[in-house]
């Protein structure tokens, strides 16, 4: 379930592929790797629930904490998804909700509920590469980078990883020029992604720090984003992970923003 946080990785499942790898003969095609990565990281259940503790550390070592519950439901495997992010900490944003209806064929719908302002706000989908509540994760990391946004190629196969390089089709729409992703050859879990900025400097790294088996699904339980330019990082730790909890589709509606579903409780 936590994989949703590793979604630039899950997004892989939905890519368009180009296979120019010179060693294609000994490695599976990009298409196949991506499909399997997609399977491994995405089809692990019809829905899921996890509690996330996010620690944001800035260049000065100052730490901030965010705690929230994520509910996810897949409308269709490999298709549309629903997310409900319910905040518990910091205490002054408790009950804040971020909800996403992720679509493959059109822009996502996004809502923000601010309890202290008694306000439900739609957030325009114009740019998803903005910070997720001040952390080093981006909204696009939460709801997933769109399937057709990048071209991918297999550039290397190492002892334990397939290394893919992804280049945006519309370079002006994003702040990176490309990213490289390492996918575990055994279970097809994406392990690391490195982003290069327009000047070609590595400025951002996303990593899976710890993977556990939960209900038979390999699951990332600790992940980290590092900002190499401003020197800061965010570490996410996942607890109380459950798959196939039987979430109803109706809880992912505006009505439940003000009155969160029971599923956000333990």
């Amino acid at each position, binding site marked *: 379930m936590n994989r949703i946080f590793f979604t630039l990785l899950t997004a892989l499942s939905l890519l368009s592929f180009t296979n120019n790898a010179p060693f294609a003969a000994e490695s599976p095609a990009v298409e196949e790797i991506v499909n399997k990565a997609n399977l491994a990281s995405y089809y692990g259940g019809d829905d899921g629930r996890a509690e996330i503790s996010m620690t944001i550390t800035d260049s000065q070592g100052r730490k901030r904490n965010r705690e929230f519950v994520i509910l996810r439901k897949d409308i269709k495997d490999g298709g549309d998804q629903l997310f409900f992010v319910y905040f518990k900490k910091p205490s002054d944003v408790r009950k*804040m909700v971020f909800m996403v209806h992720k679509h493959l064929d059109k822009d996502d719908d996004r809502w923000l509920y601010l309890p202290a302002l008694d306000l439900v706000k739609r957030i325009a989908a114009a740019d998803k590469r903005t910070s997720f509540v001040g952390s080093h994760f981006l909204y696009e990391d939460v709801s997933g980078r769109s399937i057709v946004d990048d071209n991918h190629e297999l550039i290397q196969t190492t002892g334990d990883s397939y290394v893919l390089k992804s280049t945006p089709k519309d370079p002006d729409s994003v702040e990176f020029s490309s990213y490289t992703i390492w996918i575990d050859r055994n279970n097809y879990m994406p392990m690391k992604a490195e982003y290069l900025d327009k000047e070609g400097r590595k400025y951002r790294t996303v990593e899976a720090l710890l993977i556990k088996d939960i209900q038979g699904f390999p699951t990332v339980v600790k992940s980290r984003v590092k900002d190499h330019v401003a020197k800061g990082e965010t570490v996410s730790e996942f607890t109380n992970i459950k798959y196939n909890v039987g979430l109803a589709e109706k809880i992912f509606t505006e009505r439940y923003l003000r009155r969160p579903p029971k599923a956000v409780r333990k």
Partner: protein
Amino acid sequence: MKASRFINISLDKPKTVTAIIMLISLILGAMIVKVRVDTDPENMLSEQEGVRIFHHLVKKEFTLHDVIVLGVVNETHPDGVFNPATLKHVQELTEFSKKLADPDDPAKRVVTQNIIAPGTVDNIEQAGLGQVRFEWLMKEAPTSREQALAIRDNAMSNPLLKGTLVSENGKALCIYLPLSSKDFAYNARNQLLEKIETFAADNGDTFYITGLPVAEDTFGVEMFVQMAVSAPLAMVAIFLLMLLFFKKMRLIISPMIVAMVSVISTMGLMIGTGNTLHIMSSMIPIFLMPIAVVDSIHILSEFFDTYPSIQDRRKTLEHVMDQLFMPMLYTSLTSTAGFASLALTPIPPVQIFGIFVAFGIMLAWLLTIIFIPAYIMMMKEENLAGFGIAGKSKAGANDTLMSRILRWLGGFTYNRAKIILALSMVALAISAYGISKITINDNPVKWFKKDHPIRVADTVLNSHFGGTYEAYLILETAEKELDIQGTAKLVTRQFENFSAETQDNKEIASEALSLVREAASSSNSPDEFFNTLTDQIEEKQDAADDKAYDIWADTLDILALVKNRDQVFKNPEVLRYVEGLQEYLLKTGVVGKSNSVTDVVKKVYQELFEAKQEYYRVPDTVNAVAQSLISFQNSHKPDDLWHLVTPDYKKANIWLQLKSGDNQDMEAVVKMVDKYIAENPPPVQLDHKWAGLTYLNVVWQDKMVSGMLNSFLSSFGVVFVMMAVLFRSILWGGLAMVPLSVTIAIIYGLIGLIGKEYDMPVAVLSSLTLGLAVDFAIHFLERARMTFKKMGSWKEAIRDMFEEPARAITRNVIVIAIGFTPLLAAPLVPYQTVGVFLASIMATLLETWLFKKIHT
């Protein structure tokens, strides 16, 4: 005691003496290659200086950098700078700046992620019905007029950007380029100018670059260039003058050698002992050079005048040395004292400057004593033939203009003592008035001439924007921390209030209250108390039914509010207080604009409510503030918030844009803020402190002024004691102080009268004046006494005094005055020259008066 025995070695072994001198100066001079240049005026403060430490702490804590301001103004296009062509240039410059680094040291660069430019600032805006959007203000350069104007309108509607990024009339736009290191500013400016050169000039855009780091770094660079020009120029001027006085090229090379050796050895020693070459110490050569030749001129002058009658160089030299040894020693000692007193200032570069000029003066004295005689001994006797006022009788000897004027002056002082006295009194009175008018002020940008591009940029940009000078007003909570009992009491009171609200609350609140008591007795610290209590309430909450769950949740809210009460900059009352302070700051007339966390909260809150004007305010609860702020953090640049508040919300930074970098203006703002806070106590205890380059300049310049005054007074005392010892009379010592006191009074009176502000160069001037003015008094008085002994009559003595001793002094006055004139060519410090010039002339005039007074 015959002073001439000190020079026996030079007379006996001139070549050995010369060789040793050359060797030592070569060794010291070799160390000059180790030079490390330092052009940072911040180093005027010691690194341990409290305000400097705080400034750096603030810069680090709020991720602030010293900033280059790059402005573009378009007065001709109807849409001002908001046309596709100009914005394309702006975008190009932004992209160019992102890569801007020092080619020799890539660590010195523009801090890319903190650039403020249309392409790098995030804007929260309305995106259709009920939607907000975080979008770059200018994601790419616009291609149509509509797009360009949309960018203008978005920027204008953002109070954080208006007056900072865009001017209110839309004709100007500023890019703020933060630097990782301040001393990259000059280099960065040059690279930017080169880039701007490549733009087609047909669009009506004018580009300007300013900001304190640029001014300071550029000043440093230009200062060095000028010193490299001025010092040799001074050398040439002195050389030509001496040639005029003494005619013999071979002879006057010797004082030039003394000056060169003094300067080279002093600089070598300074650099060799690990000191950096700072703006101040770069002035050492030009200070030292004229002073170094003074003693030589006395020797040569005397030699020039007496050699024709004695006709033996050894005997002449012995005679000259007997006459001059004591006055030369004392003049050097007093000049040294004048400069050495700078070591008492609390400003490291000024200390270094003072100490090494002092060292240089003593070195020059020593060299004069041992090298000049050696040099003359090494000349062939026939080269001296015809030297001096040869073959003529003393009475009719001197018919040069100088001699005639001096002779007249001698008669005048003797006969018109009262007039001189009266004139001096009038001058003193006027000076006293002038001194009362002196204003202490400085601004690094004003070190440049008015037509310097940096000065022009400063004027233009400050007319369009809130201001290009930055100061940071740091507010920090000073609330006392409570102990466990106090904390528990506070929580108890809140829970009791909560209990009274509804019947449903009552039951749970009473349970919660017992948890409070338990936690209070089992905990050792307030933190532990909160953690224990939170855990226990959460346990209860997890076990509760839906209705109780919510009530338990409310208790958690209450608990969090109490726990986080020290996060004062989420407190609406505090934010409104900051708002009031900012409004007040605008009324000062100096602050053109200020940005704070309050502005962020207000802007976000307004946009969340469809940009309605009535929501442009601070919301009413802590949570509403917090949720507005977390909405802001959903942007591309969430960390921008931490320039204005620390993540623990205990400290806030009000970022002030000042239209003027003058100390006086900054000081006025500081005073007004103090007054405001005293008259309007904040809702919670807040400490306030200042940081930022503009403020830092105020601090070191204040120190400079008070430090200079102290050092001046102490050196004044030292010189007086020296005088008393020299003349073995307190009366004579006191009298020797009179001319220089009057001189200094007149100089500073003049500075006050012409409205020149008391700034760094003027402050340095005082020690120079003190050191030099007293020289003339010493020479005049010491030799007057000698002459009196010989002649037995003051009237005779005076006539004698206005012959060769007066000529020697006059020659020196002219050398010093001319020696400093190359500084006139330096637009940065012209007033120094004027001051020195006046100092010299006044000194001689007043000495003559003084002498007369003693006599009568």
